[in-house]
Structure formats: structure tokens, C-alpha cells
């Protein structure tokens, strides 16, 4: 609270000076503002409910003051009330984020709220994603120290943000990273570049009474301190690159794993070869019981200490993201491979401008487990390499070609197999064929057209009479046209239509204006319910029908 007051005073003084640039003693104040609004009304055809408030709004303003090595910042957030799909616990407004920091090449200290990541995040990733409504910021102290060239040490302690409160659990962590090429003089000129790292994170929670599943007269003997450690190595040699990280977590009975005592572990491997015109990558992942939260009783996406990276291809097209895969932190085995080849200019397949082809394949399975009990037991046993239930597979081919000076075409075909069990539904397998055509046409210096046409054929079907609830089911067509006028305006129209074995017609229009760092967009139309996912982390978005608007600016 003292930090918050001090910070507010400093920022107020700085802004009294000059909001746009020079503040106190030569410092700078910068910031950005974002406002998103939504009006929606009931629409039984798409399952949209009534919004009693009529108007929903998410708004935020980040303000940063920097003066040499010193910086201070805060973020004001307002959810009056939160947009559809955001947790109602966000309702309210106030200073959500505030910090003071001192940073030099050798030392960085942050007091207040901060974000941090160790390695790939498998034991610690405090991050924020405003579109997912996730903010796992830590409130405490974060320290970075470089005692000698090539060695970086981090240490932190704090509590995690939980909507407008701070979680009860304490999070403590330390991480060290050694760049061998900087540390060891004979390696400084080596083509082989090696970075080693290791980290450890511990959380503390108070004891509480959680009954044993086997006998209600017994309670769980809870570990109050739960630790997770990881070792990692990054290697680069010529065109080759290898990143690997192994993490292990101690006993952590929680609602996420059914209060079992089995330790967790995860392994990530990422091997890539890349040179001009060609690249290939192979990723492998094994995750077993790696949900790591600062509250053992919290489900949902808040209070995660760690983050398990996604291994499947991350798409942006509407039909390709209709069945997004959410990372299964409780357990999964995955493999992904991707090859990109560029046919050179002047060749038969390359044409005048060259042609890029990407082939991607991924498959993700559950663990092959044998149950040994419920809450208060080891839970299950699992073989390392044995595959369990199929969760997701995908194969895709993408061709990217500049047709002439004005036309650019991207064509994609993908085949997906999706198991809704990963979303908590009954296990089944949906098989989807998807074709996307994406054409950009630069008409002249002031006008451009962006056209997308998508088709998805799926063996899923939607029939409310049979108790189906998944409105994504069926075969879909999707079209999108965006006209950019000059440097300021754009107009777009789109529609998603389930023409077979499903229901739903989701037309929408939008218009936008941008000038400098300010952008205003207004849209009207129907929004399909579904999952919005970023990096394997997802948020359920309900259906809506109405007006949306957004304003962003920075200074």
C-alpha cells in the first residue's frame, strides 16, 4: 500500500509537469489506453442471453514513468460490467497493477506488481493476457542480478493476483542462467552456443481440512510447501538449434488433480533446423500432473504459477480455431513437426516471386494411466512413453504465394481430429476437413482489399433433440471481406454459416478509423459461442448479438 501511494504521488507530479513528454527531472511519461464496449440482446437462434446492463465495458490505462534507471508504473482497470466471457469477479474498478523499479545492466529490482518467467514457464510464468482475462501478476519483490558476465540470477517472492484480491498462497522462486560462451573464454568464439539454466519455485499455503475420498473420518495430510524445479539447456550450432527443459513438481494435492499425491513432471524438446529458404522443426512434450497453482482449491485459469506451452500449431483463421486445443496440464504426450520450403524465384513452382510451402503435423494423446485411488492416494500410475486416449491430431498444408505486385494468396488445407473430452465433455472424435483461401489485393496506393473464404466439413452434428449442446458442430462456410481506404479507414463484413448438420448464421460488419496511435472500431453482428485460446490457454466466450466498439490509443 505504501508503494501504491508513493507511486501515485510520483506519477501525479510527473503529469503535472507535462503529460506527453518531459516530466519531473527529465523523466518521461508514456502510456496507453484501451476501452472495449459491448451491447448485446437475447437471440435464441444462437443461444445468446439477455444482458441486463445493456452496456458492458472493459477499460484499462497503463501509465509508465521512466527516469534513467528508475521507472514506476500503474495500470487502472475498470470492468463496468465485464464483457461477456470475462469472469464476473472482475466487476469493479481500481488500480490493479503498480510498481517501482530500478534497472541497470547488472541489477534490476522491482517492488510492487511484476511479471516474470523462468525458462519456458513450466515452473513459473507470471503473465497477463487481456483477451483471455488472465492476470497472474505477482505482488512482491523481484530481483535480477548478473554477478559476472554470462551469469544471470533471478529471485522473487510474492502473492498472485486473483481478480481484485491477492491469493492467499505465497510464491517464492529463484532461477539461474549461465551462458557458457560468455562465461568460458575459450568458448567465446565457438560456433556452438550453449545456455544452461535451472530454477526452483516453492509455494506455501495454509493447512485446511479436506476429507479423504476413502474414509470421511480422515483428512488429507497436506504438504504446506510445494516445490517445483526445472533444468534447461539451449544449444545452437550453425543452422541447428535445440531447446530442452525438464521440470519436476513435488506432491501437490489440488482440485485440479483430484487431491492426489503423485509428483508431477514435464519434458519439452524443441529441435529446429533453419536456413534461407528451408526450415524444419520437431517438438515433443510429455506432461504428467503439472498443474501448479498458488491455491490448491482453485480451478479455472487464475492463480496458475506455471504455464505449459502449447505444442500444436497456433492458428488465426476462424474455421481452424473452431476446435482449439487447450493444453492438458494434468497429462498429455505430444509431438509436432513442421517443414517449410521456399521454391525460388524463376523456378517452375516458384514463379516470378517464389512460393512458400509449409507442412505441419501434430498429435497429442492423454497418458496411459492405471488408477490406484482417489483423493489421498498416489492417484494413478503411468508409463512414460505409453499413449492413452487420443486428444488431438492435425495435419496441414499451407501455400503462400505472391501472385503479382498487387495480389498475395495464402491457401491452407488442414485435417483435424478433435476429442471434446479435453473440454470436459464426453469422449468422442470429430474429424474436420478445412480449406482456407486468403487473398490480399492492393488495388492502388490508397485502397486494398482482403478477402478470406473458408470451408469446414465435419462429421460432428448438432441436434438439440438428441441433447447436443455444441453449436460448433456441422459443416461451415465462412466469408470475410475487408476494404482498407487510405491510411485511416477500413470497412469489413463477414459471415459464418453452418449449412449442414448444424445451426448458426453469424453475420457481422465493422468499421474502423485510425490516426497516429489511436484506433477506433465499431462492429455490429452475431458472435458464435466458443473457446478463445491463446497458446493453449482458453476462455469460454458466450454467444452474443449486438454492437461492439473499441478504442485504443497511446501517448
Amino acid at each position, binding site marked *: 500500500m505504501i508503494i501504491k501511494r508513493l507511486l501515485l504521488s510520483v506519477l501525479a507530479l510527473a503529469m503535472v509537469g507535462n503529460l506527453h513528454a518531459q516530466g519531473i527531472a527529465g523523466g518521461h511519461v508514456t502510456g496507453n489506453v484501451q476501452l472495449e464496449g459491448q451491447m448485446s440482446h437475447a437471440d435464441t437462434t444462437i443461444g445468446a442471453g439477455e444482458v441486463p446492463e445493456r452496456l458492458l465495458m472493459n477499460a484499462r490505462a497503463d501509465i509508465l514513468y521512466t527516469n534513467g534507471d528508475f521507472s514506476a508504473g500503474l495500470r487502472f482497470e475498470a470492468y463496468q460490467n465485464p464483457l461477456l466471457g470475462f469472469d464476473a469477479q472482475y466487476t469493479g474498478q481500481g488500480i490493479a497493477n503498480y510498481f517501482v523499479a530500478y534497472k541497470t545492466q547488472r541489477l534490476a529490482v522491482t517492488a510492487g506488481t511484476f511479471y516474470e518467467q523462468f525458462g519456458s514457464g513450466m515452473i513459473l510464468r507470471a503473465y497477463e493476457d487481456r483477451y483471455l482475462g488472465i492476470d497472474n501478476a505477482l505482488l512482491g519483490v523481484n530481483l535480477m542480478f548478473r554477478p559476472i558476465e554470462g*551469469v544471470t540470477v533471478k529471485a522473487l517472492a510474492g502473492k498472485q493476483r486473483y481478480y481484485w484480491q491477492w491469493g492467499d498462497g505465497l510464491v517464492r522462486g*529463484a532461477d539461474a542462467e549461465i551462458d557458457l560462451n560468455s562465461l568460458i573464454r575459450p568458448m567465446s568464439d565457438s560456433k556452438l552456443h550453449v545456455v544452461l539454466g535451472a530454477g526452483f519455485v516453492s509455494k506455501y499455503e495454509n493447512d485446511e481440512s479436506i476429507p479423504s475420498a476413502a474414509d470421511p473420518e480422515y483428512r488429507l495430510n497436506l504438504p504446506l510447501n510445494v516445490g517445483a524445479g526445472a533444468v534447461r539447456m539451449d544449444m545452437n550450432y550453425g543452422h541447428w538449434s535445440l531447446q530442452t527443459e525438464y521440470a519436476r513438481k513435488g506432491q501437490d494435492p489440488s482440485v485440479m488433480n483430484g487431491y492426489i499425491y503423485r509428483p508431477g513432471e514435464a519434458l519439452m524438446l524443441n529441435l529446429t533446423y533453419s536456413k534461407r529458404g528451408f526450415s524444419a522443426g520437431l517438438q515433443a512434450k510429455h506432461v504428467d500432473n503439472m498443474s501448479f497453482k498458488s491455491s490448491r482449491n482453485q480451478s479455472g485459469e487464475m492463480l496458475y504459477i506455471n504455464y505449459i506451452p502449447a505444442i500444436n500449431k497456433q492458428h488465426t483463421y476462424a474455421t481452424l480455431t473452431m476446435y482449439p486445443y487447450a493444453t492438458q496440464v494434468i497429462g498429455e504426450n505430444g509431438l509436432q513437426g513442421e517443414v517449410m520450403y521456399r521454391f525460388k524465384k524463376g523456378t517452375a513452382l516458384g514463379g516470378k516471386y517464389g512460393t512458400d510451402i509449409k507442412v505441419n503435423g501434430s498429435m497429442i494423446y492423454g497418458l496411459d494411466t492405471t488408477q490406484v485411488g482417489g483423493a489421498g492416494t498416489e492417484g494413478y500410475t503411468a508409463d512414460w512413453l505409453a499413449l492413452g486416449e487420443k486428444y488431438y491430431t492435425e495435419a496441414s498444408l499451407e501455400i503462400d504465394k505472391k501472385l503479382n505486385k498487387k495480389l498475395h494468396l495464402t491457401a491452407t488445407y488442414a485435417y483435424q481430429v478433435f476429442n471434446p473430452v479435453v473440454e470436459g465433455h464426453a469422449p468422442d472424435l470429430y474429424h474436420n476437413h478445412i480449406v482456407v483461401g486468403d487473398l490480399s489485393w492492393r488495388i492502388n496506393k490508397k485502397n486494398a482489399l482482403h478477402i478470406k473464404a473458408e470451408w469446414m466439413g465435419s462429421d460432428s452434428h448438432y441436434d438439440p433433440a438428441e441433447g447436443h449442446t455444441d453449436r460448433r458442430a456441422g459443416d461451415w462456410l465462412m466469408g470475410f471481406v475487408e476494404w482498407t481506404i487510405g491510411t485511416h479507414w477500413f470497412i469489413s463484413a463477414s459471415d459464418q454459416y453452418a449449412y449442414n448438420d448444424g445451426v448458426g448464421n453469424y453475420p457481422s460488419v465493422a468499421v474502423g478509423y485510425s490516426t497516429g496511435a489511436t484506433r477506433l472500431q465499431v462492429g455490429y453482428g452475431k458472435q458464435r459461442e466458443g473457446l478463445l485460446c491463446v497458446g493453449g490457454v482458453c476462455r469460454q466466450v458466450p454467444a452474443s448479438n449486438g454492437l461492439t466498439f473499441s478504442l485504443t490509443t497511446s501517448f
Partner: protein
Amino acid sequence: MKKILLPIIGAALMMAACDKIPEGEYTVFSGINATWSDGDGVEAIQRAYVEKYTGPTCTNCPLADETLDAAHETFGERLVVVSINHYEGQGKPFAGEPDMRTDGGTAWCKYFGINSLPSAYLNRNTSKQYTSSMGNIVTDIATAIAQQPVLGIGVSAKETNVGEISIGVDIQMAQAYTKPMTLTLALIEDSLAYKQSTPNGTDAEYVHNHMLRDVLTDFWGVDVQGVGAAGEKRHASFGTYSVKDENIKLENCHIVAFVSDKASKQVLNVAQCGIE
């Protein structure tokens, strides 16, 4: 080298911040459970609950005893004291002396972060901790028992067979209280003579009173069911409790029953009784 070593040592220390529960100890006995039924009611008298943390090698702990013994003289049955033997440090017994540490007491010590002795809380209000001679705890007890009670509580206990106790608790709401509450039962013993450090040296036959011998329910109590509105009355019948330590003399024991706010752990009211 020192620059590298220090962070490594720091990291190693952090590694210690990881508890490992041995296989076979994943669950612990959670105590006796209650069966709830409509009650006959009980007069609402506000009493004060003092949870005092002590240890045999704690030299100043007898100073706390003096203060609380005097308070007992003043407040009589309106004051209920439970003495909890800390689980480590000065809580460890002298060689060959009885070990008064309990699982429930250890859980409470850890939860409330007790790391110096003597320490005490009044009604588990953790915003004010009493140490050494207990400061102005007597004044605060007087203030606490002058408050309008949220509820009335009464407890009765009977030895049905040798070493087996059956317990009943009555609760009557004096005011509306909508937040979840828990009911905790503890067994305390008086007149225990064993070695104790004192400011004047070691007393081999120091008499300890109100010593916690066991938490009968779950350490954090059982959920209070069916009350909330003013005037509501409930009776909790507990299953048979079997005394675990044969050295416990039931004639010197009391059953302490207290109702607390489930989230904050603050005690709303307390009662104690002898064992018939």
C-alpha cells in the same frame, strides 16, 4: 567464486521449501463428526477464549501462566484457556519428561505462525498477539466478554465406557450470522506436574493447567449446520471419542467447545465442561 556460490546456496535453501509426505501418511484421522438436530437452546453468555502457546524449556512461559491464572480468578467460567505445547524449539520436552505436543496443536502453531514463546491470542484475533507476561490481556478479556454474543454455546461430556467419551453441544444464535462457522472440540488437562524452565531456574514439579491433549474434531472444526438467523437452535451429537493416551486422567480433564468463523478462524464463543 563467492559470487556464484551465494546464489547456489540460496537456491539450495529454497529447495528445502518443499514438504514430502511419506507414503502411508497421506491421510490423518480427522476426528469425530457431528450429527446435527434441532436443539433446546442455550443461554447466550459471551466468554473469552485464550489460546496460549507454551513449552517446557521456555523460561518466560510461567509468567504468562501467572497472568492467566490471575485472570481466571477474576473472570471464572467466562474465561477459557487452552495451553498448547509448541512443536519445536522450546516446545521440546526435557529428556525423560512427558511430551505434550499434539498433532492439532502443531497444526495451529504452524497456521498462526507462532515462532516465539510464550504467545497468546484472544479469540484467535491474530491482529493482536500477547507475549511474555501477556501485556494488557486482562483488560482485553474484560472488553471481550462485555460484547453482545453472536451465539450461545453449551457443552456436555460423559464417559460412556472406560476411556470413551460421548459429547453433545448446543448452539443458539443470539444474532444473525450468515458466514460459515465451524465447531471445534478440544480435550484439555489440568494438574500435570512435569519439569518446566522458569525465570528462577528449573522447576521439576511445575503444575501445568489447561494443557491441550488432543483436538477431538478436525483441527479446524466441523461445519456448523442449520443456524444463521437469530434465535435458531441446534444440537450436535458427536460420535464416541476414544482417549488415545492412557496417561490422560479424565477426572482432571475438560472438554472445550468453540465456534469460530470458518474463514478468519476468529472464535465467536466458547464453553467448557468436565467429563461426567
